[in-house]
């Protein structure tokens, strides 16, 4: 019974079952629009500022690193394109993932977990209201929406940060930065960034909900559940990022070639 392999399989099974139920209940009336708006506002309010603040140094670090590398190779003119691609395709979805999981997911997990131990969720089920439809669907949708919009914000702030650092600190030329930008980057790069953010929001929301619904024993269990939810989300998101990046690079022809 308590064999670790079985335990892991059962947890994954539960997780996918929750995902399927969430998908089904998304289309079940009545749709909880009010809850969705409240959750959207909440997740957005805890993530926007930190995301913007993190993305400036992140864009700068990438610009500095890529700038120094291209300088050694004698390809300074491509600094702009390279750093923009790195920001839009990789850095931005990952920053979104960290904030969505760390700020939004942990709050959602703690909220659901404490409702669970106060028997609120049981009471809801007893009253014939499905907690998945009522609470989890709006939360997961809110996470996905915020992730997509946040990704746009982080991309812009990151690119601007990179530009400022490259042009003012590394004495790159604005013209070269911008022209290499359009020589290497293309629209699908932003699409894949947004798609990644959407998937990350989905996974972070579902993991937070899954952990929050099954806290083990009392208030300490809720703390553990939040901790697990953040760690599991990070692991999953980085893994999924590798897969999505690999598939994207295979499927979409790159512009520079």
């Amino acid at each position, binding site marked *: 019974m*308590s064999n670790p392999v079985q335990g892991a399989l059962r947890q994954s099974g539960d997780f996918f079952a929750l995902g399927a139920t969430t998908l089904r209940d998304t289309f079940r009336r009545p749709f909880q629009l009010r809850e969705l708006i409240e959750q959207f506002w909440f997740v957005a309010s805890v993530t926007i500022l930190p995301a913007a603040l993190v993305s400036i140094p992140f864009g700068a670090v990438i610009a500095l690193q890529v700038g120094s590398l291209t300088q050694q190779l004698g390809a300074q003119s491509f600094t702009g394109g390279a750093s923009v691609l790195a920001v839009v395709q990789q850095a931005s979805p990952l920053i979104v993932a960290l904030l969505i999981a760390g700020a939004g997911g942990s709050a959602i997990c703690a909220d659901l977990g404490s*409702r669970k131990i106060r*028997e*609120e969720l049981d009471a809801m089920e007893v009253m014939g*209201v499905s907690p998945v439809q009522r609470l989890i669907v709006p939360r997961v949708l809110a996470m996905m929406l915020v992730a997509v919009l946040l990704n746009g914000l982080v991309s812009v702030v990151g690119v601007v940060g990179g530009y400022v650092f490259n042009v003012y600190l590394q004495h790159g030329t604005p013209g070269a930065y911008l022209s290499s930008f359009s020589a290497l980057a293309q629209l699908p790069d932003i699409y894949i960034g947004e798609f990644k953010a959407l998937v990350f929001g989905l996974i972070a929301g579902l993991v937070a909900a899954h952990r929050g619904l099954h806290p083990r024993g009392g208030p300490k269990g809720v703390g553990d559940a939040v901790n697990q939810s953040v760690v599991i989300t990070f692991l999953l998101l980085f893994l999924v990022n590798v897969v999505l990046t690999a598939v994207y690079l295979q499927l979409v022809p790159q512009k520079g070639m």
Partner: protein
Amino acid sequence: MGIEVTVEGLTKSFGSQTVWEDVTLTLPAGEVSVMLGPSGTGKTVFLKSVIGLLRPEHGRVLVGDVDMASSPEHEIYEARKLFGVMFQDGALFGSMNLYDNIAFPLREHTRKKESEIRRIVLERMELVGLIGSEAKLPGEISGGMRKRAGLARALVLDPQIILCDEPDSGLDPVRTSYLSQLLIDLNAQIDATMLIVTHNLDIATTVPDNLGMLFRRRLVAFGPRELLLTSDEPVVRQFLGGHRHGPIGMAEEKDQQTLDLEKELLPAPAVGVPPQLEPSPGLPPRQAVQRRRQRVLALQNQRRVAATAPAPGEQP
């Protein structure tokens, strides 16, 4: 009239630990039943199994045609609308005030107008004595008020079956007896089937029509209150008397050595049958009383016949 709940051969375990097994009983329609048991014998687990929140491994819980233990989920959701459940701590939604909490089931399941919802909610709040606290949040009120609000919320959809999880925990004796009276008055007014899970002796001896007791992973007894209150079963006697002589120890069960030692002490006296609570003056008499009298008389006759009839296989 309430609905009969039939429990057949119910067994529940968590991992390798069995909570109780082979529990069989019938909650008669419209009557009040109490499930007793020392702490940690799975009374709350039993209540949650009846409502279908926990899935027992074996057995059935029949409410009408629906088996709360194994029917498809949508049937269970439908059947739950017949229930009103009062949780141990009220289980109110922390983000809503009392009014919205109590109005929640009405807003979810009915298409009533807001004015009508207001009328019903205020009526129920008056019933449990919470008028004037509509705008308070659950975090701002005492445990007793939370319980009463939980009860009011359980009542708004006019349930046919009411389940109460430890209505007395965290209440002082005076409030507990008010609550006991409230439960009996409710039964007189709406004639719902009620199951109360508790270890409070005052409630157990004066409120219910039927008593049951869980101990050592099984249902020790379940039957009309007269039967249990005069029972010779050592566990039942010890528990109802509330003393230390008997099989129940501090750590759930006593070992044989202590039991042998105690045999030399005086046996515990029986508690007797205290009068049952009556509905408050002005309320209609409880319809369950008549039905129960007939049921218990029939039960008695059956026993008498069984006692005089020759055992099967015996030559006349």
